[in-house]
């Protein structure tokens, strides 16, 4: 029914946006836990195989964890205003640059 009523292309994303907004308090800590788990794995992998590639992968997951730690903190400090989209973009740029560099390093 919803799909028939949608007038704009972005209307199709509305249920997802509403779901994310409703569950924001639960989703952020979950993503933080997963990112910390990935960071732990990346650090253990670096310990097992100390190459530049694994150092960069670990660095990428470190920034990912920091970003999500800040986003969780944002829930308590100034809900939704402290960590802006623009600052999130900077983190994502660093993360992607690290992962891309890791592909070319051994």
């Amino acid at each position, binding site marked *: 029914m919803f799909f028939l009523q949608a007038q704009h292309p972005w209307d199709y994303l509305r249920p997802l946006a509403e779901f994310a907004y409703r569950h924001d308090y639960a989703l952020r800590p979950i993503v933080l836990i997963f990112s910390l788990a990935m960071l732990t*794995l*990346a650090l*253990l*992998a670096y*310990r*097992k*195989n*100390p190459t530049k*590639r*694994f150092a960069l*992968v670990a660095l990428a997951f470190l920034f990912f964890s920091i970003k999500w730690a800040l986003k969780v903190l944002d829930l308590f400090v100034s809900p939704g205003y402290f960590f802006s989209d623009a600052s999130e973009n900077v983190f994502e740029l660093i993360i992607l640059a690290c992962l891309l560099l*890791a*592909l070319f390093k051994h």
Partner: protein
Amino acid sequence: MLALIDREKALALATRRKLFDEIKRFPGIHFRELRRRTNLAIGSLQYHLDVLCKARLVKAEKKGKYLRYFPVINEPSREEKDILALLREPNVRKLILFLANKKRATNKQLAKFLGVSASTVSFHINKLLSAGIVAKHRKGKKTYFALTNPKWVRELIISYRKSFLDELVDSFVEIWSRL
């Protein structure tokens, strides 16, 4: 003289106990892997390993190009040591697991399973053949490889399997190394 080092004294040092625990957890572990797990400097690790060997708590054995360490307590048999050393090589481990499931396979099937060339499979299979873990037999034009004692190999794999975290880290390393 060397054996006069007291076992208790040898394990009094926390670093040495940790080292001994690692060898007990992973019988057949080699020097570099031990170094990674304990974060000890080469000289320091060599010294502590010498002490453990002199106290007859640990035994060092050359297996291929690696010097591997085994705990003397509950010491595995020679055959078990051979298979444990081989099980620590990822491709050989996969071959053993494949043969344990399929009962027998040709070189071509094994190469397809591992995604490597037939000559690489031959290289690994020869190690298993010389250790007596695998036997080959001809049927028509084909040569089949099979485990000599599948039940025993399965039991050994179960009792010395890696921890879940080890598997995760290995998968992580493998995925990123392939890219």
